[in-house]
């Protein structure tokens, strides 16, 4: 029986091999997952170099602690996504390391609302997330998307949507609670 040489190996198996010190498995995992992860980080960090830095740190940490991945709790892709998102958000919140020009920053904020909407529009209509986000009222949906897709915090989201901080906090609280109720 012939085996197709380039058949992809599931990422879960690759992480298993990485945990046993298999360096080529880490390279294969990089090949399969890094392009998506850099894109996700870049949507949060806006800069390609910082996005790559986030992904680099996640892969380096993975090399040391791949055994902490528990495949009974989810997919490798989901685990890597959470790791990269967390790393990127920490870099964002740590702001001192990221210098954007002021004018650039204003333009970036405008872009972010468009990015957040584009991500929502790109969801499949068959996806229950699309259905449940659509069920939220528009302001709450936009607030939730701004924070998740582009990594804004309460204050930045409030500035982007030009509402008081307290209003933003309450939109997000009610929005994410209603979202979970709809999804369950």
């Amino acid at each position: 029986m012939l085996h197709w040489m380039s058949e992809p190996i599931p990422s879960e198996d690759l992480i298993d091999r990485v945990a046993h010190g298999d360096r080529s498995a880490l390279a294969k995992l990089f090949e399969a997952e890094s392009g998506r992860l850099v894109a996700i980080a870049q949507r949060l960090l806006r800069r390609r170099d910082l996005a790559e830095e986030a992904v680099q740190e996640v892969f380096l940490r993975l090399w040391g602690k791949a055994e902490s991945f528990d495949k009974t709790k989810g997919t490798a892709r989901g685990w890597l996504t959470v790791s990269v998102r967390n790393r990127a958000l920490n870099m964002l919140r740590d702001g001192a390391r990221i210098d954007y020009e002021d004018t650039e920053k204003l333009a970036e904020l405008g872009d972010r609302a468009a990015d957040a909407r584009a991500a929502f529009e790109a969801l499949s209509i068959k996806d229950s997330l699309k259905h449940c986000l659509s069920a939220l009222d528009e302001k709450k949906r936009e607030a939730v998307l701004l924070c998740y897709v582009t990594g804004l915090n309460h204050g930045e989201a409030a500035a982007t949507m030009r509402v008081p901080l307290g209003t933003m906090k309450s939109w997000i609280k009610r929005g994410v609670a209603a979202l979970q109720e709809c999804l369950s």
Partner: protein
Amino acid sequence: MTQAELERVGEYVLGLLEGPDAEAFERQLAQSPELAAAVDRLRRHLHALDDTAMPLPANPELWARIDAGLGAGATVVPSTRLPPPDNDNHNSWMRFAGLAASVLVALGVGYLAGSTTGAQRAPVMVAVLLSEDAMQPGAIVEAFADDSVRLMPLDRFEVPEGRVLEVWTLPDPATGPVSLGTFSNPQTINLAGPDLPPPMSGQLYEITLEPAGGSPTGRPTGPILVKGFAKAPL
């Protein structure tokens, strides 16, 4: 779950709990399987939003940095760094490059006027991609000095189930076409693009239909939907 718990789970997954708040919530998570399950559930749903980010090609330089950071041991080269040496499509790209002069696309002035205002970046090169059959404009490509590309579809491309649209350019006929990224929705997208020489006048851009995940060979394999040649804006 109480309303307050739902709100807390949501804020945590959205990345809005910081410092002591996040630590306190994580301690709660470790104690409560119900709460942990709610976090996992919401994360799984929201990953559909992460999946809408347009994947970039794996960057070999990034891998080199990671590989160097792993410490002693043999250096590993991911296999996709070695594209197949040749295929049939390669030759047709060479022919297109030869035709470049005859199909150079002129640009409407109004479009450029709109894109040079404010803090927006100015493209180094612009190409209008024309459909293969009717020679109708199907997309506009703006190429920037930092290798990134902005693609604005003008036509709704028909994408059959299980296929994606892949954007290519030909910086150098000798090395062949290079993928700039894939997309499936007809919306304006920004592609970061691989590390390439600065875009040149007459450089070919095209969009092909490829299997989901992009061309398996690293070269265009599917039908060409639209193509055009770059020209520098005035």
